[in-house]
């Protein structure tokens, strides 16, 4: 059973913002709303500066779902966290709960009123008929219903951003880390998906020092 996840390889991200552009273009996201953005960590620290692409991670135990006062969030069978904009009241609780700053609020009206929350949908649309005009207008394109993956991940030129079934993309990343021999730190993975005992790196066994053979 597929569980859709995002993985950003900080060793590879070159901060080109291709993912941001792809998302904006594919979903025709309004001005002022950024479903995906590239952030720099350790900014200015020589040798430690990294860039990562951040959006909704579709957490296993999503805090936005837990805090929503109108219960407008749901999770699809393939693990994508979506919401119903017809129910959202734009209260902003989800924004405070989210560790990734994913929920975005378009400014509605002249007095700085917050509109309904908008966030990355893993290119899976929302609770409107799939591939319909209504779905596209409210939530953006439903690429999963077309048998495709999110535009940001498919567009990433260095393949730093991987999207898809957690097991598949973790295997890709594992092989990549083994080949390059470094850079196994995954930003945001454990915050979003938890840490399973099996996911821990093997404990280094101390070298035998005794003379026994």
């Amino acid at each position, binding site marked *: 059973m597929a569980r859709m996840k995002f993985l950003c390889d900080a060793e590879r991200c070159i901060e080109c913002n291709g993912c941001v552009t792809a998302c904006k273009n594919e979903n025709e996201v309004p001005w002022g709303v950024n479903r995906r953005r590239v952030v720099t960590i350790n900014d200015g620290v020589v040798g430690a500066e990294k860039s990562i692409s951040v959006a909704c991670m579709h957490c296993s135990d999503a805090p936005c779902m837990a805090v929503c006062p109108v*219960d407008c969030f749901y999770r699809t069978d393939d693990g994508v966290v*979506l919401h*119903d904009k017809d*129910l959202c009241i734009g209260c902003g609780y989800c924004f405070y709960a989210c560790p990734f700053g994913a929920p975005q609020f378009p400014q509605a009206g002249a007095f700085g009123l917050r509109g309904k929350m908008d966030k990355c949908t893993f290119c899976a649309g929302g609770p409107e008929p799939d591939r319909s005009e209504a779905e596209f207008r409210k939530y953006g394109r439903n690429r999963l219903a077309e*048998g495709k993956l999110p535009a940001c991940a498919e567009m990433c030129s260095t393949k730093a951003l991987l999207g898809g079934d957690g097991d*598949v*993309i973790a295997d890709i990343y594992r092989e*990549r880390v083994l*080949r390059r021999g470094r850079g196994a730190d995954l930003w945001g993975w454990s915050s979003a998906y938890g840490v399973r005992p099996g996911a821990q790196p093997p404990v280094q066994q101390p070298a035998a020092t005794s003379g026994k053979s």
Partner: protein
Amino acid sequence: MRLLLAFVAALGLVACGEKEQVVVYKQGKYQGKPDNRSWDNAPLPAEFRRGEWKQGDRTSWEESVKTRQLAQHEYRRIYQ
């Protein structure tokens, strides 16, 4: 003394009854509209698609998407 031990034991076991507080979504059990599933859609016309699946069959849809996911694996794309 016995009463005190029983009290301490009862106090110590209080946490055992605590339920894990995890949001569990059940299909169609939230306040909003129900959504349909990706695999319930027919595949796109041949000129717009790569993979193919049988409408309503989750396994074939997952296989189709998995093939596409593996295209992100450049070591396999280049060396095979």
